[in-house]
């Protein structure tokens, strides 16, 4: 029973992190119909930026903010410089491009930051909380992780549903030409989409790193799991991404605890294929019209 609870709570925090990452993928997918395989190394770089700032003696929150801001900038720069030329071209070009970026950022991080492990601080404590007298396997930072992801998801929903910028971003994503003749500055919206996505990606990087160890490859496993989570949720919906992430976190945590950690990637593959083949629109789609 206790093991079940611990596994579940662990899965929930882990799921929140996948959810954040899936949100980032979803944002980019919404704005440019590209899956950004370089999301993980981008987040890794911004986490290192935060670490450098924290190690220089500044507070955790300064580093946190710096990572988010640099994520925003990095996303915008990557979209403008690298991705813009392949937008609207064959899908495969964009995929290869982001994979190239994946390899490049990785190597550059190895050169700049070295490949040793470093610990990354976490606010709100990394010791399990106690409710009454019963200890529960949830840390202050874990609670923060889940809340942060929920808040970000909420903000994104508000942004897309109720603001003009959100509407313009969606219009630009769905139909560039129509959006243009209606006066939407499409290029700017795409840049904004990438920038926001990279910001959310940076957040996921910070949440994974918090209270744990970082090295240039620490986000690599999230590439696959974040993608699976996004697909579970339908790739198009922020809420779906978050639910997908949570479900995946719980399932993988259970697989790792009860079947063996070596089977976790296989479980992710099975879940992904099952969803793609049985419910191509994701678990929460109303109309299964997505072409996968």
């Amino acid at each position, binding site marked *: 029973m206790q093991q079940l609870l611990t596994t579940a709570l662990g899965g929930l925090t882990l799921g929140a992190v996948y959810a954040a990452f899936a949100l980032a993928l979803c944002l980019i*997918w919404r704005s440019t119909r*590209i*899956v950004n*395989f370089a999301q993980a190394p981008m987040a890794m770089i911004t986490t290192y930026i935060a670490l450098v700032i924290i190690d220089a003696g500044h507070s955790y929150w300064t580093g946190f903010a710096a990572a988010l801001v640099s994520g925003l900038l990095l996303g915008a720069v990557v979209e403008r410089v*690298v991705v813009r*030329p*392949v937008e609207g071209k*064959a*899908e*495969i*070009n964009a*995929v*290869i*491009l982001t*994979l*190239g*970026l*994946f*390899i*490049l*950022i*990785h*190597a*550059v991080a*190895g*050169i700049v930051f*070295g*490949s040793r492990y470093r610990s990354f601080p976490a606010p709100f404590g990394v010791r399990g909380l106690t409710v009454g007298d019963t200890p529960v396997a949830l840390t202050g930072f874990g609670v923060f992780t889940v809340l942060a992801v929920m808040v970000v998801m909420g903000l994104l929903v508000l942004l897309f549903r109720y603001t003009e910028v959100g509407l313009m971003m969606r219009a630009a994503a769905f139909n560039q030409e129509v959006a243009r003749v209606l006066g939407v500055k499409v290029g700017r919206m795409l840049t904004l989409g990438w920038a926001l996505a990279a910001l959310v990606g940076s957040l996921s990087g910070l949440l994974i790193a918090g209270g744990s160890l970082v090295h240039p490859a620490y986000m*690599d*496993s999230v*590439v*696959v799991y974040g*993608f*699976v989570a996004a*697909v579970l949720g339908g790739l198009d919906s922020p809420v779906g991404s978050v639910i997908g992430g949570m479900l995946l976190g719980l399932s993988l945590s259970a697989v790792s605890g009860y079947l*063996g950690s*070596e*089977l*976790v*990637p*296989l479980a*992710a*593959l099975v879940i*992904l*294929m099952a969803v*793609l*083949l049985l419910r191509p629109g994701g678990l929460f789609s109303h109309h299964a019209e997505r*072409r*996968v």
Partner: protein
Amino acid sequence: MPTTTEAGEKDPAAAADGRGGPRRRWRSSVLPRHLSLAVLGLLAVTVVMETTGSFANSQLASMAYLGIAAGGLTVLTGLNGQLSLGHGAFMAVGAYTTALFLDGEPPALPLPVVLAAATLVTLLVGAVVGVAAARLHGPYIAGATLALAVAVPGVVLHFERLGGEQGLGVRMPETPVWVLDAAYFVTGSELDPTKYVAYIGWAALVVTYVLLANLMRGRVGRTWRAVRDDEVAAEIAGIHLGRARVLAFVVSTACAGLAGAVMAMAVRITAPSGFSLTLSLTLLSAVVLGGLGSLTGALIGSALLTFLPHLVTGLGTDAGLTDVRAAELAPAVYGLTMILVILVAPAGITGTLRNLWRRRRGVA
């Protein structure tokens, strides 16, 4: 993808033949041409192999297995438009099959049969995955094969028989005496095991490329291109989309299986860490660098990936970088080149050269 990237798509010789005679003659002229190229290639390989040292031979063996896998991948990605990030996983299937069949003293099966078996087993696995993959597109197929690439090493760890993290040693059977004699008779030098594996690799590569080249030129190749270029049009033309996709996937994974078999023999071990995501990405960068859809490109790409890291790391060390930093230079160069190729020269090296050549001759 621009159609101009395909090997010899607009080769003047073939085009001339196609126009000049009835269809039968066009078809029959392709095979001899490929075969004579193959013989020429084998001779060139022999000359290179005999005039270079053992280390170069071992590098050539690596180039051979990368080349075989890249050839298969370029057919899938360049010709049929499906992207696989999981070809490393299929190489693992071929490699483990080889390791299992060669286990035993003497091995239960002769070497060519083992190679064929590895290809066949991988082909079957590929068929299963291909049926699922054929229903996916673009980023979805990329993501699914990515998950496959990550999952396979875990599966290997799960089964004790496969040796866990340490993997299985690959016992290379003794080189048959008649081969040693024949090799000595032809080349005048001893055939050491390294060279033997390199020859096997290149023989496998040449056979694979001749088969692939014929497929690409024939009806099957046209079907694949049609599916890639315009699904709707292809379907209207009576092409069964799913079948074409699965076939491309199966052919491509069979190549990966054969490549895995050669790799197992060249590396002498199959372990999960040998089939990391890096391997799959390496293959992809080989075909992108060389030029998608071109066998020559795949070969050039695998040559680059075999010889470039060595060169770049050397340059880095000479420039005074620490070993650790110099070692990161090679992937940095790949990554950058992949990006630049897509942005500047999406046709890859072969495509770009061909375009330049055409422009110079005023054909285009």
